[in-house]
């Protein structure tokens, strides 16, 4: 029996013992086909999913090599049934191909006639397939390319998309590498994406996803449509692109609620694209406005459902998804896979932190004990009100203040989900508030003041969840959130992970009310980060508020 670092479980998870001497080699061997699910400190969990196996098949690995890797590194005998299952699953990919036929245009080709007959009979594909050309080929209308791929994935016969991409309208874009260089993992991410044609790059917040996007544009050298979550994030993209590439202010257009510019590089928000008038999407023309050579989706995990539908029509264009996490609260990971593309690159957060690209962070959960009056108010509140009552307890205010004082020489962000509470906090801490109704101009002013250090403390509402670039923020204090959202927690931590000038440690505090639903949500939120290797420390509010009382022995 070998003494490998890997343990294969019957539920198709793989446990990798990190401290084992062969752990690195094993990680290299299994990374192509297994998805990293959790990476706490000692044992990382990978999962074998059909998506992952098909990904690796698409990258040219065969079942034999997967099975060999498992057997080579496995500590214990691998069940025969699992090996058979892997071989059978991998064999399903590529039996069907989408290809360009010189005569008939886009066609679905079956390398296995029986499979082709099986899927052609399926009701789910009704209306997507055209005339049968011969035994092995069926015509497909080009507009159905995305939907067909979606449907075939659901049937368990994912098609290999060999139909290629249009080059789009050429536009010169280069990286301006003056005094900085693309980091090694960023370059790997871009290479991985370009080799695959379309797909998603997963990098932690603060690891420079914008630069991956910029480098992809420099590789494509074509007009680019960038979809971002909100206007502020869009402006940051713009600023970054001007600084890091040969693009100028005039070449970059903003397509948002305020401005409707369409230029060689256009940055549009999800919100404006999904806004409707009289039930119809009014800004769909944007997708056809130019011959885009590349479409970049920022924060793919937030992609709203209508955008998926538009994306289904964009299958001939290269698509790059950027995200810190593929976890979607709505579970539509399969749609991301079939419409934007498979995952092309990902690296565990801790690895990048170890390389010094993101700041090391300390995560602390501070538990406050509610006063008896608050406990009574919580006990009698309606169930839908309970989280608000617990999360906005006034007892949290002195704790937040104590934390701010503790870090009085650092830039502190206070993030919350309830506006009343934020206003209370603003008054209590004497700090300005940025919320949804704050004008973009006012936001820019406050962010600039925060960046240059004249403003030490800033209170943020949910707008702080996404894509706000505040590199100097070193401390984040979370007082309330959107229930148990895991990706929100990751995003908020990301706010303080930009590497600091002096390599300081970042701090992330989560203030929760003990013995309430707030605690339950907090532990659910922490799950993702704990799985990424961030160990939360839990302290009592009393430890924060003052030195412990001297003990009398």
């Amino acid at each position, binding site marked *: 029996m070998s003494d490998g670092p890997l*343990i294969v*479980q019957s539920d198709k*998870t793989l446990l990798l013992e990190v401290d084992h001497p062969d752990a690195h080699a094993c990680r290299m061997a299994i990374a192509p086909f297994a998805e990293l699910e959790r990476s706490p400190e000692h044992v990382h969990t990978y999962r074998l999913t059909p998506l992952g196996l098909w990904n690796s098949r698409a990258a040219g690995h065969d079942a034999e090599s997967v099975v060999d890797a498992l057997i080579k590194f496995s500590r214990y*005998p691998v*069940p*025969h049934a699992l090996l058979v299952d892997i071989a059978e699953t991998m064999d399903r990919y590529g039996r069907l191909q989408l290809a360009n036929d010189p005569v008939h245009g886009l066609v679905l080709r079956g390398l296995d006639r029986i499979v082709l007959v099986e899927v052609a009979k399926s009701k789910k594909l009704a209306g997507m397939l055209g005339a049968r050309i011969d035994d092995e080929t069926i015509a497909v209308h080009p507009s159905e390319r995305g939907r067909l791929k979606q449907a075939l994935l659901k049937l368990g016969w994912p098609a290999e998309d060999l139909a290629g991409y249009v080059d789009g309208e050429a536009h010169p874009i280069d990286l301006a590498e003056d005094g900085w260089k693309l980091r090694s993992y960023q370059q790997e991410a871009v290479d991985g994406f370009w080799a695959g044609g379309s797909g998603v790059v997963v990098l932690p917040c603060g690891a420079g996803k914008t630069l991956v996007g910029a480098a992809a544009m420099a590789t494509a050298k074509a007009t680019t449509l960038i979809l971002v979550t909100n206007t502020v994030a869009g402006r940051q993209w713009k600023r970054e692109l001007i600084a890091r590439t040969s693009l100028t202010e005039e070449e970059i257009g903003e397509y948002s609620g305020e401005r409707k510019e369409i230029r060689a590089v256009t940055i549009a928000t999800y919100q404006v694209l999904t806004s409707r008038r009289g039930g119809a999407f009014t800004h769909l023309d944007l997708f056809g406005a130019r011959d885009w050579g590349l479409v970049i989706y920022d924060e793919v995990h937030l992609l709203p459902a209508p955008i998926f539908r538009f994306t289904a029509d964009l299958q001939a264009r290269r698509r790059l998804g950027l995200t810190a996490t593929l976890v979607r609260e709505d579970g539509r990971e399969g749609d991301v896979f079939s419409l934007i593309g498979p995952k092309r690159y990902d690296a565990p957060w801790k690895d990048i932190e170890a390389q010094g690209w993101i700041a090391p962070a300390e995560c602390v959960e501070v538990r406050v004990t509610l006063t008896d009056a608050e406990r009574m108010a919580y006990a009698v509140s309606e169930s839908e009100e309970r989280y608000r009552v617990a999360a906005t307890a006034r007892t949290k205010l002195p704790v937040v203040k104590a934390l701010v004082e503790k870090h009085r020489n650092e830039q502190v962000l206070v993030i919350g989900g309830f506006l009343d509470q934020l206003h209370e906090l603003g008054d209590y801490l004497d700090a300005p508030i940025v919320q949804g109704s704050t004008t973009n101009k006012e936001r820019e002013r406050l962010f600039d003041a925060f960046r240059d250090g004249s403003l030490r403390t800033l209170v943020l509402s949910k707008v702080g969840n996404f894509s706000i670039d505040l590199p100097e923020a070193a401390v984040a204090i979370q007082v309330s959130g959107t229930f148990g959202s895991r990706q929100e927690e990751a995003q908020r931590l990301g706010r303080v992970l930009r590497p600091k000038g002096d390599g300081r440690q970042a701090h992330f505090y989560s203030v929760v009310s003990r013995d309430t639903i707030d605690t339950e949500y907090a532990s659910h939120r922490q799950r993702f980060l704990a799985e990424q290797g*961030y160990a*939360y420390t839990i302290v009592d509010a009393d430890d924060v508020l003052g030195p412990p009382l001297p003990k009398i022995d």
Partner: protein
Amino acid sequence: MATTFADQLRSLPDEALGTLIQLRPDLVVPVPADISALAVRAQSRNSVARCLDGLDEFTLLILDATRLSRATTTALTSVDAILELTAGVDPDDVRAAIDRLRARFLLHGPPEALQVVGAVDEVTSPYPAGLGRPADFLDAQAGALVADRAKLRRTVLSAPPAARAVLDRLAAGPPIGALNRASLNRAAPGRADDGTPDGGKPDTDRAEVAEPVRWLVDQHVLVPVSEAGRAPRPDGELVELPREIGMLLRRETGPLGTLRPAPPLPDGPVRDPRAADSAGAGQVMEAVRATEAILEALAAEAAPVLRAGGLGVRDLKRLAKAAGVDEAAAALLIETAYAAGLIGESEVGARSAGGPAPDVFLPTGAYDLWRAAGVAQRWATLARCWLAMTRQPGLIGRRDDRDRPINALAPDAERAGAPQARREALDALADLGTGAAPPVDALLGLLLWQAPRRARGREVAHRDAYAGAAVLGVTGLGALTSYARLLLTDPEPDETDPLGLHPAEAPADAVRALDELLPAPVDHVLVQADLTVVVPGPPEPELAAELDAVAEPESAGGASVFRVTPASVRRALDIGYRADDLHTLFRRRSRTPVPQTLTYLIDDTARKHGGLRSGSAGSYLRSDDEALLAEVLGDKRLVPVDLRRIAPTVLVSPRPVARLLGALREAGYAPVAEDAGGATVLTRPKARRAVTRTPRVPEPLGPPLLAGPRLAGVVEQLRRGDIATRAARRAPVTVRAAQGQAVPGLTAVQQHSQAMAVLQQAVRDKARVWVGYVDSHGATLSRLVKPVSLSAGYLRAEDERGESLHTFALHRITAAVTEE
């Protein structure tokens, strides 16, 4: 015929007789009285059929050749005649086959005058080697055609292509074809016993078939018959190809068709034995784990037994999901666990309205013993029971004849032949050598050659055996594993330890071999900050019990992953752990530092644990006046009601309300009762009464008196019995013994099958036989008769004087003995 069959047996040396009995062990079960009885049994249909079942394809074909080469007049043949038919094959192979047949006494007599045992013709196809009957037997004109070799050749050559195709199909055997469309759909009754592919049922359209066949019939190449093996009839619905024409058409392969003296060895990949063992061992762990998961799920929620027996589809799905295996594998494991006695029926199901309580399937007490054993031992238990169980799990989920799904544990999946099929399948694989992993189809081909009569119809069972072997880890990567090979030869564990209570003391070879392949149990865990606890290997029983108590299982397999949650910590506190115990447990077991989160979680949960208290009481006493309650509590007269203070204003007592109220009133207090809503209840004394009973009615004494028709019936029965006894006095002892009449010194009871054998032989020999039978009134009689025919469930026989023909239903015959 120089000597009789019995004489030949009698003249055998002891060794040869012993060999025969070894080759055909059923001849001596039960031990026959003498050599004549042995001879009768050796020629009986049952025994001959059983012997033929064990013969391989080549030997059976040689037997067919023997039948073909018999001279029409003497029914004798010779080795040379047989060799003539088998040109192209090594004569030594043929001689060896003939020797095998002679050793089994299917052929007897000297080499130049061989005789085939009569029953062979009765239990095999009327068409040896797939050839029809001789032409002159079928039809004079066909005989004339065959006699003229040149004309025959011309006719066959001039056949139109469609007709030639029909001829080729019939020549390949069986030589029977349907004439019209109506009988096309009916399976041709002729059985092919030569192992050649079944080609006798042309399934093309009538228009295509009828015309060429008509032509062939007109040319007398085909002869119409009414029924396979029956006399030819011009208006028959079937056609038969005469033997001589069939042999002519088989010029290329030889008259017997393709002969394969050696078994068709399947070629396939040969696995590295270690790789096969490793994959198998992995599957063993998986099978044991899945079985345990299924049984745990069953224990958590018992599954009702369906009215028709078996486990419902929904329950099967649920158990399969709980174990994380597909339904086919789950069905196999459930059947195996049932066969191993780990699952049983119990009557503890919830009582439905009105009806009786339904039975439920639950794990048995044996399950707890099984679970305590090591993985290898547990597997060996499962594997042995799987080998021996008369169930065919592959049928589960299929549909039966009436298109109803077959359920797990249902009677429909019972197959008596399953254990033998499983043995055959695994032995065939074992004989191929270490690491051989041929495709299943090739193995089925080999099995078909080894014993065609048995394997035909058992393909499903064989396939099922291979599928089951893969799921249970008996095979790995398609090859038989080293430990399973030991299991196949392993003797059963001895009877001194029937319960398997001390498996570790003397583990069987297979268990020991398997143990070496399985990971050693570990006694430590890795605790991580996300509150997961990883056991990097199979946990020791003690560790497993501890983790079961304090954490939720999340994933199982080579290792197990648990997660500590507030609920799991609370559960541990509930069963008596204290926070300190939990801290110690994790510190002691963990190889890595215990994360602060876990420590905090335990302390936090322990702090809240017990914040609410609950208990039961028979009654309560409350008052806003604390002083009054204090007085009541201190009152000596109220000691018997055991009052206890649980809050300043509440006392409780284990006694019922009425008792408490009575005691209080007696002591001079003025209590009032409350109902569940808190309202005052007024009570009034009630007169007491006992439960009403129905008085007993006297019963009549003594047995009832008989009169009228019932009395007459008894008398008639007595008389009839008397007559039977007198008649039976003339019959031999065996017949009398079978009729239940005590015979001093003789208690032999004849088996029904033996009676049949005697009758069959008597028909052949035209001998007189004593037949014991039960008449339509239930009386036992015996008669000396001369059997004429034995068919369709009836014996037809002439009576002693040969005057009249009697018919006996076979099921009423209790014994038959040849007249001495």
